[in-house]
């Protein structure tokens, strides 16, 4: 058994060296495509930080002062519920201090200064409001009306804050996903072609192997490993790149002015790690499957 494993590794290594240019091309292409896939994930997650406040068609957020009296809070709520023609009453959602604090951690993910100033006692709680009307003027006048209520710290409107971001994020997602899919298929085709070349280069050897009674898997495994390793190497390079990009971005973002929203575009390390593991799995699978299919097709065993 050890004999066979060492044989497979030796052959894989020898074949990789023999086709060094094609192998490197396959590795680079899979690295670039996987880097794009990873970057798409990270961007989505970063944009998501900005949008988390507005999830579920929320059009208006009424922030309530942290020191509000229970009477004032009830008064605000009643006020919101008294407008069933303009506001979708069943969808009104109250986020208490704990909830607001959790949310703020994401909104200010890259803004250490703001984060350090926030605490569960000083944070405003909030009502999330889904307007029924699409008339912006009406929503605006409503907002002005709520701003004057006692205990209200402020009112934010979705159209002021996130329409641009939402459109941008949708566009970026579509483009990057499309590009990474194209590049990923190019990578698989390149791996496929490398394997075909490797098989062609060794066809005499393979003929002899078949005649002396080597099993199909024995012949195939080095080729499959070669493709798998190419995919995995590409994924490793892409992880390095992604990690570097993310570090540069995270430290760069800290320099932006607070409140511009840019500082929200930061992802937590645990998410980055998850994406990197996913890339390694995608890379290895794409390489292994591509070369597996190629070797079954061209070995004719």
């Amino acid at each position: 058994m050890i004999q066979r494993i060492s044989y497979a590794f030796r052959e894989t290594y020898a074949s990789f060296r023999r086709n060094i240019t094609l192998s490197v091309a396959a590795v680079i292409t899979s690295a670039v495509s996987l880097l794009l896939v990873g970057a798409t994930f990270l961007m989505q997650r970063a944009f998501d930080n900005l949008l988390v406040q507005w999830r579920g068609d929320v059009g208006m957020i009424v922030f309530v002062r942290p020191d509000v009296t229970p009477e004032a809070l009830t008064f605000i709520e009643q006020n919101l519920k008294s407008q069933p023609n303009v506001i979708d009453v069943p969808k009104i959602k109250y986020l208490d201090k704990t909830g607001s604090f959790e949310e703020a951690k994401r909104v200010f993910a890259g803004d250490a200064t703001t984060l350090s100033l926030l605490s569960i006692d000083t944070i405003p709680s909030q009502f999330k409001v889904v307007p029924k009307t699409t008339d912006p003027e009406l929503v605006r006048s409503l907002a002005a009306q709520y701003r004057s209520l006692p205990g209200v710290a402020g009112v934010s409107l979705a159209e002021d804050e996130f329409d641009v971001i939402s459109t941008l994020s949708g566009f970026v997602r579509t483009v990057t996903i499309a590009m990474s899919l194209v590049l990923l298929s190019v990578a698989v085709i390149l791996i496929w072609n490398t394997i075909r070349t490797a098989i062609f280069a060794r066809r005499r050897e393979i003929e002899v192997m078949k005649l002396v009674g080597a099993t199909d898997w024995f012949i195939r495994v080095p080729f499959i490993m070669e493709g798998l390793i190419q995919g995995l190497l590409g994924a490793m390079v892409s992880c390095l790149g992604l990690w570097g990009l993310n570090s540069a971005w995270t430290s760069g973002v800290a320099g932006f002015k607070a409140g511009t929203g840019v500082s929200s575009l930061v992802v937590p390390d645990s998410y980055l790690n998850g994406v990197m593991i996913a890339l390694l799995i995608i890379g290895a699978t794409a390489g292994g499957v591509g070369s597996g299919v190629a070797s079954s097709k061209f070995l004719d065993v």
Partner: protein
Amino acid sequence: MIRLENVSKMYGSDQPAVRDATFDVPKGEFVFLVGPSGSGKSTLLRLMNRQERPERGNVWVAGRNINEMANSQIPYLRRTMGNVFQDYKLLPNKSVFENVAFALEVIGKPRHIIGQQVPQVLDLVGLAGKEDRLPHQLSGGEQQRVSIARAFVNRPLILLADEPTGNLDPATGEGIMSLLDAINRTGTTVVMATHDHRVVNAMRRRVIQLDRGVIVRDQERGVYE
């Protein structure tokens, strides 16, 4: 050991390469398949190790119908046979030792067995001391000896040889024939396709003659004609 029953093999739509071939090769026999080029000798050999499958008829090897064998069983069938070719089919970038060892390596023999069996068989074919040469540093006769060593190193039941002397001068060919004869005397069944009159006439073994895919003669201790 080998039995063909009414075997026919077609390539494309024109006349069959082998038509209705039936014969039996008992264990330990030495058989010549003779006939001009294109008479179906090589096809018969390729039917015996299932590089080809017949359109009709059955091929039995060591008591098993190999046409009904699952593809996954074919490697194990081939481990019971050695193959020798006119063009040797050696791997040019491997040494003599490695070429022979390769046959054992790819069927998963442990290293210490390889280290034992390869020198033995190289000694048998008269190549002791040339283990480290590459194929291009050897004469044609020596290359064919390497190929015979590779075919025989696993002690197969059957040795299939396709024109093994075809590229060699008569004296060298004689040496190869006495080697095949020696292998046959160890009990290995040998089937050899050839159109070399001299070797057939010198050996006086069973001769099966083919003409355009049909067996026209099957004679004990025959000559070429």
